[in-house]
């Protein structure tokens, strides 16, 4: 006898999603489906026809959890479409911003999973540790990118301005001071996840990993030809679920994939482990990589170097790709600019990639572990909710059931 366990909405994540699990008599999940029920925002359509400069400003407002990757992916897509090579110092400032954001975002996720893995007597320690880390790295984003939440200084062609020498030295000192604290924090989190005693193999799937870089992102490593996108009807075998799912299903080489910190470490490092514990461990370790990157970059940064390239904003209609490794995974924005206006804009965002994999990852274990499997991906759905596909020939909506805007 198969029974259905439904969690709606799934909790301690950004946005709204539903987890539907078919379970057998022992409560073991035989079929897991996870899908977004967050309404469509339609950012991509809003951007079309606007001045290219508005893209990063709009795109960063897709979501308040990872505005920085969206800003960067947007600016990089525009840079690529306009054929811009940004100055070295601008690239360093962008890398600093993203590395700091990785640490901040991972720390927030550790706060969200704290009720799952942190015992009561360590709760205050763990939360203070998260707060202290966030304070320092958000200062990096504030100073380098102009604003901690919606960075104002990441611009097409580079950055609005370089930072002062005082700011560089101050950030360097603060980040150096943070290092022992962050190391202790990472050790604490990894230890607590281990102590939790998740069953061996929980969350393991054979979905391939997809990442473009170890930390920042690299458009060269994203092959658009290997990407396809299908409608939920073609993916979910339950028509009711397919009808309610708000995001399309992206595939790479025709397969669902996993993106995120573990995917990055597995693709560009020698990290072999898979599943829930591995995802938490990879995320924690990535905080150390990111802090080292910040410290090294601050040591090298020339604060008198130019940070803005010369460019022609009119564009040639080249398809530009911006591939940024967001905390939750690869975030690809694509843009075309011609006659000084955005002609086409599309985002392939981190959690969209993970959605088809996440449901499957709950299979084979008791349904009570379902939410843990989901949270291990740190899902964030507001950006994952995708545009409806419109037939460009006759402007018809291919699937009438999708939300119309």
């Amino acid at each position, binding site marked *: 006898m198969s029974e259905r366990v439904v969690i709606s909405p799934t909790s301690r994540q950004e946005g709204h999603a539903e987890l539907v699990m078919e379970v057998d008599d022992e409560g073991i999940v035989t079929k897991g489906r996870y899908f977004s029920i967050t309404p469509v925002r339609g950012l991509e359509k809003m951007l079309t026809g606007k001045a290219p400069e508005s893209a990063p400003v709009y795109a960063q407002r897709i979501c308040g959890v990872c505005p920085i990757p969206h800003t960067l992916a947007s600016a990089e897509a525009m840079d690529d479409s306009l054929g811009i090579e940004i100055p070295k110092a601008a690239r360093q400032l962008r890398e600093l911003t993203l590395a700091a954001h990785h640490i901040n975002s991972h720390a927030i996720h550790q706060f969200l999973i704290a009720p799952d893995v942190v015992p009561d007597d360590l709760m205050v320690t763990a939360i203070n540790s998260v707060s202290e880390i966030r304070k320092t790295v958000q200062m990096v984003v504030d100073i380098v990118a*102009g604003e901690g939440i919606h960075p104002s200084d990441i611009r097409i062609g580079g950055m609005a301005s*370089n930072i002062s020498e*005082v*700011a560089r030295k101050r950030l360097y000192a603060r980040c150096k001071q943070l290092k022992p604290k962050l190391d202790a924090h990472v050790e604490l989190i990894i230890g607590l996840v281990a102590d939790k005693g998740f069953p061996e193999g929980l969350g393991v799937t054979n979905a391939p990993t997809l990442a473009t870089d170890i930390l920042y992102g690299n458009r060269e490593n994203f092959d658009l030809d290997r990407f396809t996108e299908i409608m939920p009807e073609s993916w979910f075998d339950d028509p009711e679920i397919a009808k309610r799912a708000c995001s399309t299903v992206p595939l790479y080489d025709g397969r669902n994939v996993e993106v995120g910190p573990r995917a990055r470490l597995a693709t560009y490092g020698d990290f072999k482990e898979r599943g829930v514990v591995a995802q938490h461990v990879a995320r924690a370790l990535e905080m150390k990589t990111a802090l080292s990157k910040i410290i090294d970059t601050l040591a090298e940064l020339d604060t008198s170097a130019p940070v803005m390239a010369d460019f022609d904003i009119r564009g040639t209609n080249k398809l530009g790709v911006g591939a940024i490794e967001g905390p939750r995974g690869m975030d690809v924005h694509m843009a075309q600019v011609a006659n000084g206006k955005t002609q086409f804009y599309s985002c392939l965002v981190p959690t969209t990639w993970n959605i088809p994999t996440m449901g499957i990852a709950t299979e084979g274990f008791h349904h009570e572990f379902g939410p843990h499997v989901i949270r291990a991906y740190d899902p964030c759905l507001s950006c994952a909710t995708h545009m409806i596909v419109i037939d460009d020939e006759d402007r018809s909506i291919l699937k009438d059931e999708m939300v119309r805007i």
Partner: protein
Amino acid sequence: MVLGTYKEVVAARSTDKQIQKIAQDGGIVSGLFCYALDEGLIDGAVVAGPTDVMWKPEPMVAMSSDEILAAAGTKYTFSPNVWMLKQAVRQYGLEKVGTVAIPCQSMGIRKMQSYPFGVRFLADKIALTLGIFCMENFPYESLRTFISEKAGVDFDLVEKMDIGKGKFWIETADQTLTIPLKETHGYEQNGCKVCLDYVCELADVSTGSVGTPDGWSTVFVRTDAGETVFKQAVEAGLIETKSMDDVKPGLGLLEKLATDKKTKAMKVIDERKAMGLPVPYKGSSEKEDPLANI
């Protein structure tokens, strides 16, 4: 209270000969900033810095005494210092910012501190606001026009400008010219006509020339932060003071000018309100004290 709330008012000047030479009046602003920088009370200050264009200031983040001194002296046109505060804490990475502000700017700063929209983590980093008195300010073209047309001097030759004793003073290397203030009226920016604040009522410390003899300044110490810096600078011997009772023309003149400014502005505010125009102040019928700065 036409002079705002204050703990103490004194006549004062910087004891530093170099500052005395280049400052507008008693060198209170430059003197206090240099002291606060040296003592680590601030780690930088937004001041009206020089540009390539004579007498056209631009806000600048000064992080050394030399930079503070390079910006000394009054420029009678806009220097949007408030705008620079965000850069001071972002790109410049400052955590204890000082700034010099005319009354309308200090109102903006206090409002921003009360409602910090769009200025996250900025409000709490403003450590010292030094206010300067202000009767009016001029758009750059206005200033250039009345100096070259009314006083007939080439703008580039002007070495100092000042307002006092009912006149606009222009000093060049070899002459001192004046224009009666009556004749500069109409050249000021429109907003000044509804401005109710003469003595920078919302700053930590506010200062100006009126009330004290040449080379000295009138100083209002208004807040705890202001008191700390001013007292310490006096104790360190960097600033000398005299009682306002011992100097001429004294507080009476300030009271008169502040009252005149407020009375005139209230009239314009009421007129504009009667016409249905938007004015960022209450009408005289809407407040208890018609001269209050609200």
